[in-house]
């Protein structure tokens, strides 16, 4: 789709300049340095720049232009894109700044630019970006200070400065890229387009991205799910904390989005999330140079006991196991290593180990069927031949089908080894923990690529009832609904508590008799959301006398706490006992749409924050994962001989809610709090419901 953007035969630079230091000069120079195709500078004030014929206007160029790089002031950009359209250009890169990031006028210009581009079917990268680099076609359509090395990493970044720094870091560490894309304001082309593009690109083995937000969350998950089945995707998403998200907002004019939603979306779509730029670069170097392990069992090879222990700890923390070696492995090691060496994992060759010993041990460990990957540690001790060890590692990596990651720890003395490894594009991690984290990323991808995604089951529901409840509320301009709308749950076959809403005491007593004692009584008011806080809940009422007393005192309490609240009545419901309280919630996330939440109920829920999230729609596996991934899951599964609770019915309810909120996107927020889970095979009951509807336009 973006073939002509990356693989253009002819490139025009609109705003090309002969003046050193100008962006239009840098872009042209980069093209002239590396690009083999036609380069056409456009500038009305020059006839020739860098020996190339210069045209005053793109419309004056007689030949066909595939890609136009625009580096002129923002206010001229929409008009220029229009000219590009008339000239038949299909791809443009707008490097110029001064668009949405610069305020109201800029936002207008950005809108106009996109509209103009769409009119002509032009795809646009940027504005406000560094440009792009394709090392396969030798295209450097950017104002970066040099060309990237050739490699197999496809990287995109929403920050131009992160592009520049990464290029510089990569130059020093001999890391190469297939494609390098600065996304800018993402007015037209966004991460979704480039994810697909990089997925289809044979020269890209691993995809990396630095993002501050995604443009279309739903599409993002769909695309990423497909891409991660083909090649690994590692991303950093910044703006995770309240301070960071505020910085994103003021920088880009978009919301950073909730971090829970990003975690869920990344996990569900198989993206490996890096917590920092350093982590991302660590991981992609591993992916770029190493095969993916078949399992999580690692061998640690070291010449120092302390590093062996540190690495063993790190493996445990990252969820990797230390492989239990095959008998023959141990035998061979015993026969050949010095007497005091540690033969079990971590294998300690001792401080005086020479490079031959490393070579021997690496071969033995790679042979062991129980070993999925090796982490090699080297401390520069008196006898250590750092450079030779590096050569040996490089040699073994060439043929190994198992990943080998290195951590040569030190400074001046290990730098020679590190340089050799870099020359072979093998990462050296300055500390073992980073090697382990990168190994974990490789191993995680092994699970991701094996996963197959099943679509959520289709649930038949009485949508008509839901629609009528929602329509009625919208017509009377009620956005917050409560228990009176339990029919919505019933329509999706979710068991609900027996309940009745009444207006006065007389009706309340009648309703209690119908429902059967003991009962619970709650206040009903559009102004009160936390009923317990204002004394609006009375439990375990056993007879009419209890109900009468409870009614009067509840009314008095509520009036005392909230004298202005509009009380519409009370709700009586059956007491359900013998179950555990859990919460199911949904909130329409700004980027990803319906975000489901599951957690343990009760009064400590807000303190413990023991909840899990998934983006809807979810399938049964995802529903079960949501339930089992909370810390207090053992309480539901049956702790210390207690009977388990009916987890299957909770999974059913999650799937039904997932479908409900997908069927009715006008539901912005929904909470079933609590859902009482009864012992195994007895189901669950929704005790309360709260939802917020979208205001009709």
């Amino acid at each position, binding site marked *: 789709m973006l073939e002509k953007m990356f693989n253009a035969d002819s490139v025009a630079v609109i705003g090309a300049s002969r003046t050193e230091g100008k962006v239009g000069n840098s872009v042209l120079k980069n093209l002239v340095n590396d690009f083999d195709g036609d380069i056409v500078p456009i500038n009305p004030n020059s006839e020739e720049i860098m020996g190339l014929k210069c045209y005053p206007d793109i419309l004056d160029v007689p030949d066909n232009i595939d890609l136009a790089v625009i580096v002129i002031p923002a206010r001229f950009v929409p008009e220029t894109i229009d000219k590009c359209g008339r000239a038949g250009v299909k791809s443009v890169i707008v490097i110029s700044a001064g668009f*949405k*990031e610069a305020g*109201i006028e800029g936002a207008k210009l950005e809108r106009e630019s996109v509209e103009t581009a769409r009119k002509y079917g032009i795809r646009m990268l940027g504005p406000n970006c560094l440009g792009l680099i394709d090392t396969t076609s030798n295209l450097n359509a950017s104002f970066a200070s040099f060309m990237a090395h050739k490699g197999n990493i496809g990287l995109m970044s929403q920050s131009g400065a992160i592009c520049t720094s990464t290029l510089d870091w990569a130059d020093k560490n001999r890391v190469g890229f297939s494609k390098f894309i600065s996304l800018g304001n993402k007015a037209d082309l966004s991460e979704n387009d480039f994810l697909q593009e990089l997925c289809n690109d044979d020269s890209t083995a691993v995809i990396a991205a630095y993002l501050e937000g995604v443009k279309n969350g739903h599409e993002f998950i769909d695309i990423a799910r497909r891409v991660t089945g083909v090649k690994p995707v590692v991303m950093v998403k910044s703006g995770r904390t309240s301070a960071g998200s505020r910085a994103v*907002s003021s920088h880009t004019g978009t*919301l950073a989005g909730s971090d829970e939603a990003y975690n869920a979306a990344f996990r569900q779509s198989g993206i490996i999330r890096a917590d920092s730029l350093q982590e991302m670069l660590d991981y992609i170097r591993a992916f770029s140079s190493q095969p993916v392990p078949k399992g999580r069992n690692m061998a640690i090879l070291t010449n120092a006991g302390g590093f062996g222990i540190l690495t063993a700890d790190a493996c445990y923390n990252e969820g990797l196991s230390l492989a239990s070696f095959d008998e023959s492995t141990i035998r061979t090691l015993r026969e050949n290593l010095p007497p005091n060496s540690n033969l079990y994992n971590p294998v300690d060759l001792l401080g005086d180990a020479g490079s031959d010993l490393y070579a021997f041990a690496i071969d033995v460990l790679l042979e062991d069927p129980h070993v999925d990957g090796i982490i090699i540690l080297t401390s520069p001790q008196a006898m250590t031949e750092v450079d030779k060890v590096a050569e040996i590692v490089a040699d073994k990596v060439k043929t190994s089908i198992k990943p080998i990651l290195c951590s040569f720890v030190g400074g001046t003395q290990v730098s020679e080894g590190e340089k050799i490894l870099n020359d072979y594009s093998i990462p050296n991690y300055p500390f073992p923990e980073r090697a382990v984290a990168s190994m974990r990323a490789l191993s995680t991808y092994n699970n991701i690529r094996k996963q197959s995604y099943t679509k959520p089951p289709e649930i038949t529901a009485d949508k008509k009832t839901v629609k009528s409840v929602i329509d009625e509320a919208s017509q009377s301009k009620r956005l917050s609904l409560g228990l009176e709308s339990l029919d919505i749950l019933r329509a999706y076959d979710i068991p609900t508590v027996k309940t009745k809403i009444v207006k006065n005491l007389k009706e309340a007593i009648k309703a209690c008799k119908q429902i059967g004692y003991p009962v619970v009584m709650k206040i009903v008011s559009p102004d009160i959301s936390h009923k317990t806080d204002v004394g609006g809940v009375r439990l375990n009422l056993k007879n009419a006398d209890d109900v009468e007393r409870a009614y009067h005192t509840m009314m008095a309490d509520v009036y005392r706490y909230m004298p202005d609240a509009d009380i519409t009545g009370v709700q009586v419901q059956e007491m359900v006992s013998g179950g555990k309280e859990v919460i199911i919630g949904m909130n329409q996330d700004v980027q990803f749409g319906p975000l489901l939440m599951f957690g343990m109920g009760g009064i400590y829920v807000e303190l413990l924050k023991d909840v899990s999230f998934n983006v809807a729609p979810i399938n049964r596996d995802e529903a079960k994962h949501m339930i089992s991934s909370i810390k207090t899951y053992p309480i539901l599964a049956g702790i210390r001989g207690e009977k388990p609770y009916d987890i299957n019915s909770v999974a059913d309810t999650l799937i039904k809610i997932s479908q409900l909120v997908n069927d009715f996107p006008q539901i912005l927020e929904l909470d079933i709090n609590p859902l009482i889970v009864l012992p195994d095979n007895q189901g669950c009951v929704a005790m309360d419901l709260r939802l917020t509807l979208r205001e009709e336009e």
Partner: protein
Amino acid sequence: MVSILISSSEEYSGKSGLCNGLGRILKDRGYSIGYMKPIGNLLIDKDGFLTDEDAEESRTLLGLDDSLSDITPILQTENLIHDALMGVEKRFDKTLTDAYSNISRNRDIVFIEGSGGIGSGAMYNLSDPEIASILGSKILLVTRYDSIYAIDRILCDLKLVPDSDMVAGVILNEVPESNLEKVSELVIPYLERKGIKVFGVIPQDITLRSVPISDIVDDLNAEVLTGADNLNTLVERYLVGAMEVNSAIKYFRRVPNCAVITGGDRSDIQLAAIEAKAKCLVLTGNLRPSEAVLGSAEEANIPVILVRGDTMSTIKRMESLIGRARIKQELKIEKMMELINNNVDVDNFIKSIGL
């Protein structure tokens, strides 16, 4: 010619709305209408002339050409209060009857609006019942029905009227949706058994409580940063954005037609408000928002206004603005007429004042 004094149990109960609403309805039916607010207590400067804000607005809304000094002959100035306290004799009844005879000339009905509650003006011997006695008007009592205690107020207020024949009846205003049934089943029969005519029960209406953004701009002396074309939009509630951004989105979404007050440096909250389709962003502390946020607000067509005051003082001003909004837009007066036509027995009212 008849006259009706619209009195009330408390301030901000809807006297102006009823005067103008009923006035327009009767005008449409072909009656010739007059209006007075004898005591001006909301002083404004109109073209170099001191008068009352209600008086000026009603004159415009009802399309009257009477002089403002006849519409509001007495202004509650500091001098007036001082003289009253010193016991200076003023002969206000003469001032009043003179003005009234000008206003009522060639008119079928004159609406007389009380100032404040039924007892306001008592220190000049000009409480609502006293004015009604001087001018021979009947009294229509408007009471905001906020709780069952409204009944106590009605009964007590009517005891201030010396002659029960002077009372035309009452209108219950701003009755919450949840109380409508109770009011019609229990409260009205109760009042009627006491011989009090209830002309109507007007339910709470959010449009009438709302204010246009332009009023907020004027009142807060705000600078409009973007969205100047949208200042006619009505705001029903205000919310304060001081929480974490994800909670803010949920909070803002629950309230339709709201203005969000937040600091100019809270770009995350500002975008949450835009996302939740708030009607207006009020930024405090004279801190200009980031350009990127302004760009987003402009795209979403949401006015952003900047005020000097801090959040606390801005909230105070907003509080006094919303819910005490005045009926000066055509939209609101039409809404008021609709409410009266649907909920007030206008024919019975006309009959009972002898029109």
